[in-house]
């Protein structure tokens, strides 16, 4: 009986505990269910985040696949520039540096090159050294001054030091199509003169320019006025008043004060969508006092230089183009030639009249990053008067030169060029076979290309 009691008690106790246990299980299950639901939600949430991240990663991956080094990250619009001079970094002028360097080779020796002049034209010889030459590292600065002026400076630095090749302002707000340029600048005379040497299609300047204006052309202190009327076709009219110090045409101290004048006109037509011509006459006039004509003599008088330019460009696409370019120059000079040898008791004085001309003609074909070109230059073309005291002097055969180039531009900012010159400019003198390997590099601000 006692056993039965205990048994019943146990059963009772068990049943109670089971009841409470059952309730416990139920609530636990519910809790569990809740937890699972919550977890499912969390997982769903996480999956969504993962998906989003994946998408972002994909995008990033795609952007980084090709250019791991050029991460396109947005600069916050509100990024602040701090520092002692604050925003002045943003108002710095644009700066670029062009390195123009070449290796030179010739069949003549260095002393023959130094005295290799153009008889009847200039006494200056060839400046290039056999071997490596540093033409210049040209520093180029430009920026607007204010709403009324832009400012440009070209400072070629060579081993001899720095010079100011150009430093000028240009007006931007004159009405009626006028513009004034002032300071020191390359004259608008002709075509090649105003171009920077690293834009030339050949390493050296054409013979007529070398004979009449020197191997760097004419860059002078003065003022220029141009007028661009609203004609149906492009017509630019220009006039300059210059100090007149070009060593070949005028001489550094021909006259105190500005005495040289230039006028020029350029017209251009688009013949078709892909071909354009540009042509026009130029004239330059001034007083002259120079010792560049012949050794031991100084010339005093006046000079007039006439020019005519013609360019025709065909460019159907960026892949190919063909350019023909030619300029004719004619110079008249009248005055006196005086011996500078002071030991003579009475320096010889003779009258000199020169009327000489020259022409260059060149063609350049561009295919992709490659270009090939040829140039022919000649002096004494139609006129070869060198009249000393009324007597015509002959210096021998016509000076001429023929050149060929091939160049490659790895990018817009670099260029490798090979040039050969067959140079007969010393008339009856030896032929000069010249070879140039030129390298041009530009860094810094992107300057605009000329036409």
């Amino acid at each position, binding site marked *: 009986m006692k056993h039965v009691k205990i048994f019943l008690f146990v059963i009772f106790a068990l049943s109670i505990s089971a009841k409470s246990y059952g309730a416990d299980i139920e609530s636990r299950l519910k809790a569990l269910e809740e937890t699972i639901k919550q977890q499912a939600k969390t997982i769903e949430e996480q999956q969504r985040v993962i998906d989003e991240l994946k998408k972002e990663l*994909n*995008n990033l991956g*795609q*952007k980084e*696949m*090709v*250019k791991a*080094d*050029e*991460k*396109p*990250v*947005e*600069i916050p619009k509100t990024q602040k520039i701090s520092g002692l001079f604050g925003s002045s970094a943003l108002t710095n002028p644009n700066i670029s540096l062009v390195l123009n360097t070449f290796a030179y080779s010739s069949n003549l020796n260095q002393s023959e090159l130094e005295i290799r002049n153009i008889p009847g034209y200039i006494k200056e010889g060839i400046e290039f050294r056999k071997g490596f030459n540093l033409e210049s590292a040209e520093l180029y600065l430009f920026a*607007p001054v204010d*709403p009324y002026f*832009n400012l440009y400076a070209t400072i070629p630095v060579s081993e001899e030091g720095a010079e100011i090749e150009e430093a000028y302002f*240009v007006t*931007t*707000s*004159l*009405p009626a*199509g*006028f*513009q004034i340029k002032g300071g020191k600048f390359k004259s608008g005379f002709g075509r090649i003169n105003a171009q920077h040497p690293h834009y030339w299609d050949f390493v050296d300047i054409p013979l007529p320019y070398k004979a009449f204006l020197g191997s760097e052309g004419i860059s002078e202190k003065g003022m220029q006025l*141009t*007028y*661009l009327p*609203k*004609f149906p*076709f*492009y017509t*630019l009219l220009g006039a300059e008043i210059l100090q007149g110090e070009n060593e070949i045409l005028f001489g550094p101290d021909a006259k105190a004060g500005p005495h040289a004048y230039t006028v020029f006109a*350029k017209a*251009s*037509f*688009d013949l078709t*969508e892909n071909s*354009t011509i*540009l042509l026009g006459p130029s004239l330059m006039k001034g007083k002259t006092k120079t010792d560049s004509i012949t050794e031991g003599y100084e010339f005093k008088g006046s000079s007039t230089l006439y020019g005519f330019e013609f360019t025709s460009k065909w*460019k159907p*696409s*960026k892949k190919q183009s063909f350019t023909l370019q030619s300029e004719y120059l004619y110079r008249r000079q009248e005055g006196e030639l005086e011996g500078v040898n002071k030991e003579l008791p009475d320096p010889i004085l003779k009258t000199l009249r020169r009327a000489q001309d020259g022409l260059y003609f060149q063609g350049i074909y561009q295919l*992709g*990053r490659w270009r090939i070109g040829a140039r022919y230059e000649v002096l004494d073309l139609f006129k070869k008067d060198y009249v000393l005291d009324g007597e015509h002097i002959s210096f021998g055969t016509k000076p001429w030169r023929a050149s060929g180039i091939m160049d490659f531009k*790895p*990018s*817009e*900012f670099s260029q490798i060029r090979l040039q050969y010159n067959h140079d007969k400019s010393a008339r009856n003198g030896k032929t000069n076979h010249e070879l140039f390997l030129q390298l041009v590099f530009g*860094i810094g601000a*992107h300057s*605009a*290309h*000329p*036409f």
Partner: protein
Amino acid sequence: MKRIIILLIISLLVPSLAYAGLKVVATLPWIGSLAKEIAKDRIEITTLIKPNQDPHYAEPKPSMILAARKADIIMFNGLDLEIGYLPRIIESSNNPKIQPGQKGYFDCSKFITPIEKPITLDRSMGDVHPLGNPHYHFSPENVFKVAEGMASLLSDIDPDNATFYQKNLQVFKERLEEKKRQWSSLALKGKRYISYHKLFEYMAEEFGFQIIAYIEPKPGIPPSAGHIDKLVDIIKDKKPDAILITAVAGKKEADSIRQRTGVRVIVLPHDVGVEKGIEDWFSMIDEALTRLHKGNN
């Protein structure tokens, strides 16, 4: 007799005095086309770059300088796309109305948000545009902002026609909304392409496809044989949907890659007027998206 002469002189002078509408010079065809949508016949538009030219490599022809001389407004893409010729055209134009800082100097990129603006940069990376990817004309969002900018500039310079310009902008907006609905039905999401130049990034961003590699190793630098070999490997591995080129760049390279891998090549219009039937900006986007869509079927 005297009267006749005076009348003759007056009749000669009058046409030049008469108001002939604003003269607008646009550098690129799509800019000219967009301006035309807003101003219709109230402006006379001259476009400098022809559709078959690459806008990166144009030269400042004297005729462009003359057009700028006669212009009341010059509208350009900006983000340095025209840096090689536009500064010279503007300065040589001797025209004070279109100089920087004046109303007539209209930089379309002023209204958009550029992408891919590099933080560090040098030219060993190729001709990278420091201000960001300049080819935003493939982005409907950005182009609409430019259209808004044009309408407010034109209204400002020519207030007599302000309501006309605003009305046209509204028409443009409605058409764009409708087009956007059509465009969004084209399934381009998740598609992967190889492109010749970094030209379609804005479009990729807005329409959800990806450009996974470029034929140009660096912007503006043509590919070497080695780079093409690498691309062929990428194509075999990643199996992109197609190579995207334009009529002016990439055909030769894309064809040789197609021969080696069998990958599809899709020629996309890069500007208004490159092909017959692409007369305005809408048809350019229409055509580009349709070709991408068809190329996938």
